[in-house]
């Protein structure tokens, strides 16, 4: 696999690597480019191939954008995503879109019309919310709001945007009056966290099991493969559900979060383990390993300098590809009520209430977060696919 020499020259990092088929022409530039190509590290080669794929690059931008919006969710979201940040005067409220103009003229600052609740003889003594079109509530930047801790350390109460008075709900509110926009951003972060922990646990298990299997081979390999295959035959989500049912219902939301991630990891390992085993089995019989051994390299040298670099890129790709499955499983599990529970924002939790006909007919903005999740999962899939093509040194030769 690593048929390219490995020396890493920091000078070369920025060099655009040309297609190896263009090397026929002579010249200083070509010579330089050629040298850059043959001395580039594997990481540089992968990045150069990855950059050529338009779909994957676009997806990568989306992915980075979503990761950052998840990372800075407490700052970007105007309100606290839990009941603490709820707007009790605007439950099941429609999205409010900031506007520049209304019937009273235009303004340079975006504003919304605030809603007012009233209960009087005219409304038959029921609470009725209505939009007051004569009042304007202007958008402000960096207002003070609910206190939060960014990355768990930086204390702050500034949010990116808010209203001078009242509350702004870009995606509307749910039945408790919680801001759906804030919850969506936090839910993205939750998904990323669950996915990361799950993937890491699955990865460690897969590395141990697949490593043992691929390294020893023989009957150990056969037995482990038989068990892995049997495990893979069991449909995962029903199994998730059965294992998730172990969780005592009274544990805290944070503990639940970790349990779920661990369960996802424990159930997600077989596919990864199998790939690691296959990589190991094929790689250890390659000629370059034999060549290194014949040159007198110790087995630790072979493993460190040849075997590991030959498939780290594959492993990273596999991890990226298995990520969306983790996210989707968590969403499904939370959705049926076996996963995360309410104070934690997660797409599954948010959609739990959305199945009733009442919500479907009257409050369709409950479904806005779905779009974000489709984008998130698609971005991961496209990036994973792009990385897979980029990590395969033969992908260009075949075309």
């Amino acid at each position, binding site marked *: 696999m690593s048929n390219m020499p490995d020396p890493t020259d920091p000078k070369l990092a920025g060099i655009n690597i040309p297609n190896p088929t263009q090397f026929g022409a002579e010249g200083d530039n070509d010579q330089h480019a050629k040298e850059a190509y043959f001395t580039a590290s594997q990481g540089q080669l992968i990045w150069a191939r990855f950059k050529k794929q338009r779909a994957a690059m676009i997806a990568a931008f989306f992915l980075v954008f979503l990761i950052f919006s998840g990372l800075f969710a407490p700052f970007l979201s105007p309100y606290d995503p839990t009941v603490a940040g709820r707007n009790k005067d605007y439950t099941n409220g429609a999205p409010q879109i900031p506007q520049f103009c209304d019937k009273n003229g235009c303004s340079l600052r975006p504003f919304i019309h605030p809603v007012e609740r009233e209960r009087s003889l005219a409304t038959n003594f029921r609470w009725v919310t209505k939009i007051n079109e004569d009042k304007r509530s202007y958008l402000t930047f960096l207002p003070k709001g609910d206190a939060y801790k960014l990355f768990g350390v930086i204390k702050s109460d500034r949010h990116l945007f808010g209203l001078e008075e009242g509350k702004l709900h870009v995606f509307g509110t749910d039945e408790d009056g919680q801001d759906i926009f804030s919850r969506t951003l936090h839910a993205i972060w939750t998904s990323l966290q669950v996915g990361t922990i799950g993937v890491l646990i699955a990865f460690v298990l897969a590395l141990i099991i697949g490593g043992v299997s691929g390294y020893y081979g023989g009957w150990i390999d056969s037995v482990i493969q038989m068990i892995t295959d049997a495990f893979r035959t*069991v449909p995962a989500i029903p199994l998730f*559900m*059965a294992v998730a049912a172990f969780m005592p219902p009274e544990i805290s939301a944070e503990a639940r979060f970790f349990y779920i991630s661990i369960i996802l990891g424990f159930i997600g390992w077989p596919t990864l383990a199998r790939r690691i085993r296959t990589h190991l089995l094929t790689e250890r019989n390659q000629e370059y390993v034999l060549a290194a051994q014949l040159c007198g390299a110790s087995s630790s040298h072979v493993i460190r300098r040849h075997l590991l670099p030959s498939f780290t890129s594959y492993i990273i790709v596999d991890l990226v590809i298995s990520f*969306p499955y983790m996210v989707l499983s968590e969403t499904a599990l939370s959705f*049926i009520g076996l996963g995360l529970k309410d104070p934690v924002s997660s797409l599954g939790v948010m959609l739990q209430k959305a199945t009733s006909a009442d919500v479907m007919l009257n409050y369709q903005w409950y479904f806005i977060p*779905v779009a974000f999740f489709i984008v998130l*999962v698609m971005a991961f899939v496209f990036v994973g696919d792009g990385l897979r093509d980029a990590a395969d040194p033969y992908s260009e030769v075949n075309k």
Partner: protein
Amino acid sequence: MLNFARFVITRAVMALITLIIVSLFVFLLMELVPGDCAERYLAFKNTQGSSIQIANELEAERQRLGLDRPFLERWSKWIVGAFQGEFGNSCILRVNIADLLGDKFLLSLGICLASLALAYAIAIPVGIIAAASNNPYLNNSLRIISYLGLAMPNFLLALMIMLFATVYFGETLTGLFSSQYRDAPWSWARFVDLLKHAWLPVFILGWSATAFALQTVRALMSDEIGKLYVTAATARGVHGRKLLWRYPARHALGPIINSLGFDLNRIFNELPIVALILVMTDAGKLLIDALARSNDQQLAGAIIFLLTASIVALNFFTDILLATIDPRVRKSIVR
């Protein structure tokens, strides 16, 4: 012929071993849940007003249920029962699991197999056409549709379809039967009623399966189309549909048949959640009820075991099928 029989027997034994390992997982899972059946029964009796000495009664009850036997004995008893379709009693609902499941499991299996069939009925022709044509727009749009099938989990699709149906048609499209047929015995009218309701779950479950199958078929076909024997056949004057069907498609068929088992696995994954959303009264819903509402591990274990058993069975049959239709596989067995 003798070799073929030996192949079938080897495969059957391997399937059996897989099932035994799976039954061990499932049984361990059932055992690990805090609280055993004896406690549940006693708790139930207590709610019925009989006051009993817990400690003594618990032991007696355990003995009666055979819970004091060693693990291996209980496991082997369970697995022998499981192979006969007998899973004992659910200790929460206090009814026989086989009776409870009844034809619900077969119904679910039927729906899943129908989705599988739908997926390949669409994927095979479309995938072949996509692989044969050089139209980049067709290929790219198929790629996006396939990814969408992955990114849009079935339960979201189900929700969206219901959202659409409720908003535009004022109908919720839920359930598997109309109310008058729900508990009626099987008849032609009931079957027709089932078909009227089942198309939606079949479509939803088939959706992501189709996306995956499309990817597989297209990739396999584009691999095969580039090979020399196809060029040779073209040189001999075979062309068009005849060329595609007679040469590359037959080669691509093997891996597709091989992957059927995993496709069924994927469909089963989605089944419980789709069943929950569409309020279907099938095994998937029972599974969710068993786990989320009542923590009924006996029922859950039985369903997981049955689901896995059907996948193993399908894998077994596809192996045999592959050996019968593909001379290369057959030769490699005879060896």
